[in-house]
Structure formats: structure tokens, C-alpha cells
């Protein structure tokens, strides 16, 4: 019986994991996996990734999507859908806040920001001047 090496086995790991590889390939893969720690580790990694993908939590559908779909089928169904489907927010509050762009500064805020920066620069310069005076 021929033997598989790691590079030959790699493209068939997924089929082996799902159990839909041919009988011959399954035997060859089992034989290789029994001998190769690296491939066994890779198979375990593949299982882990597969489990993660299968458990990937779905996002809620945007509000209005179901109603719009129903409305595309007719105005009566659209009206009924508006009564049936509650309008939940698309994202949670924390996520919405994270995605929201920062509000633009007002004129007063901008002036106040520049005044604070100027004051800090002045303070820094004054401290540097005093330090230099002590050294000289």
C-alpha cells in the first residue's frame, strides 16, 4: 500500500474529518495520522475551527428587512408585516455607540480646545525656561 505524506494529506483533511472521503483515502489518511503528530495537531485545529464556524452567532436582521420583504410581495402583506414584526434595533446599544462617528465639535469647543493647548504650551515653555535659568 502506498503511503501519504503530509502535503498529500493536507487537501483531504476536511473530507477525512467529515467522513466523506473514499475508503482508500480514509485508510491512507488514518495510517498517516497514526504516524504523524504534526498532522494530528492540524486535524485537531481543523476541528476547532469547524466548531467555531458552526457556532458563529448570527447577527439580527436589520429592522425593516422583514417588513420590506413582505411589502415587496404586496401592500396588504406589508401592512400586516408592520403589525407583526417588532422593530428591534439592528445592533446592541454598545455596538451602535462604538460604530457611531464622533460628533463634530462646536465653535466654542474648538476655541476652548485651542486655548487649553496654548495654555499647556505656555506652561511647558515657562517650566523649561526656569530649568534652563537654574542650570546657567
Amino acid at each position, binding site marked *: 500500500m502506498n503511503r501519504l505524506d503530509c502535503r498529500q494529506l493536507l*487537501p483531504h483533511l*476536511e*473530507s477525512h474529518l467529515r467522513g466523506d472521503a473514499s475508503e482508500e483515502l480514509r485508510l491512507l489518511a488514518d495510517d498517516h495520522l497514526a504516524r504523524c503528530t504534526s498532522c494530528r*495537531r492540524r486535524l485537531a485545529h481543523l476541528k476547532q*475551527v469547524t466548531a467555531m464556524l458552526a457556532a458563529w452567532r448570527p447577527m439580527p436582521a436589520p429592522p425593516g428587512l422583514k417588513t420590506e420583504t413582505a411589502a*415587496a*410581495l404586496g401592500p*396588504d402583506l406589508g401592512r400586516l408585516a408592520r403589525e407583526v*414584526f417588532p422593530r428591534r434595533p439592528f445592533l446592541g446599544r454598545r455596538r451602535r455607540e462604538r460604530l457611531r462617528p464622533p460628533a463634530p465639535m462646536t465653535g466654542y469647543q474648538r476655541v476652548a480646545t485651542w486655548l487649553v493647548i496654548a495654555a499647556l504650551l505656555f506652561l511647558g515653555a515657562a517650566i523649561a525656561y526656569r530649568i534652563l535659568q537654574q542650570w546657567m
Partner: protein
Amino acid sequence: MTDAPMPSSPLDALADASERDLLASAARADADATLALIDRYAPVLFNLLLRTTGLVALAEELTRDVLADALRQPAAAVPPPDGRWIVALAKETYRRLLAIDLRPDEPTHRVRIAPRYWQPERLQTADDDGLRPATARAARLLRRRLGEAWSRLAMRQRFVLALVEPHRLSTDELADVLDESEPVARQIRDEAKLALLLKLPRPSDARRREAPEARP
């Protein structure tokens, strides 16, 4: 005096109905069954498209179009006895994805994407509790990198993985969706999973980085 029962949504009564019954009722112009199908499949299609394209607006538009078109002729949409409706919906979705300017074999990070939608949520599985600390750390690292690796897959690879894993599609169902033969569909699925796997750090690498003192 007894409390009056709360008015329940017409969808509550159909919560346990099979998709075949719902489709048969929808074919008889039953509005509740049509709404129940929309309620059940709009999030499914939306998530499939969002994970494939990363574009909320596109996912929303295609979900609406595919589902509405399928429900205009529900009698034609009823799957064969051993079939599932998700296969027919995914097949039409894939056909429309190919029709727009998203090349199936190229990564779509050239178009504007929103990778934050691809960050898989932290998984709370029963397996997590039994993991050794080093394995749990490696799993956390893997979760962080999964979203990034996902965004670097080609569009078709993302579509296949987003469809196959959550819906447990068999190879013949996937072949039907992709309009390919079974061996080709299997190869596409295996290549997609391998591409994702090779873009992720291996657990052994993560362990080595996190516990250098363990090395001889």
C-alpha cells in the same frame, strides 16, 4: 375574574410548523405562513450574505430580492421530498452574487468591507470549560484571528463556508447550490476550509509564543 390572555402574534402559532407545510400554505396565499417564512429565512439569508460580502446594504438588498422572488411562486419553491428550502434560496443567492461585480475567485478586500461584522462572537461552548489553560489561550487567539483570516478568503470560499457550516449542507446539496458536480463541490469546500486554516496561526505556534519557558 380571570386575566385576559395576552394577544399573541400569528407567527407564534406557526413556530413549530415545518417549512414544507409553510410553503404549501404560502402557495394557497396564506399571509401568516408567508410572514412566518420571511421571519424564519430573512435572518438566515442576511447572515449568509453579510458573511460572504461584508456589506450590510448589499446583504439587505439581496435578501429582500431573493426571498420576495421565491415567495412570489411558493408552489414552485417547495423543495423535493428529501430537499431543503435553504438549498434553493442559496442557489439563487449564489447566482445573483455571481451576476454582480464580486469575482468569485478573488478576495473582496479591494471593495469596501466591514470586517467588524466578521468578528466571530466569543464562543461559549461546553468544550471551553474543559480546556487546559494553554489550549484555552490558543483558542482565544484563534478566535481573534478568525475574523481577519475570513476577510482574506475569496468570495466563493466565504460563501461556501458560511453556508456549509451553520446549515450542515451535504456535498450533494452544495453541488446543487454551486451548480457543480459533487467531486468539484467537495473540492471547493475542502479548499475553502484549507485556505482558512492556513491563514490562521497553528495552536502549537500560539502555545510556543505564550509559554517559551516550556521549550527545552
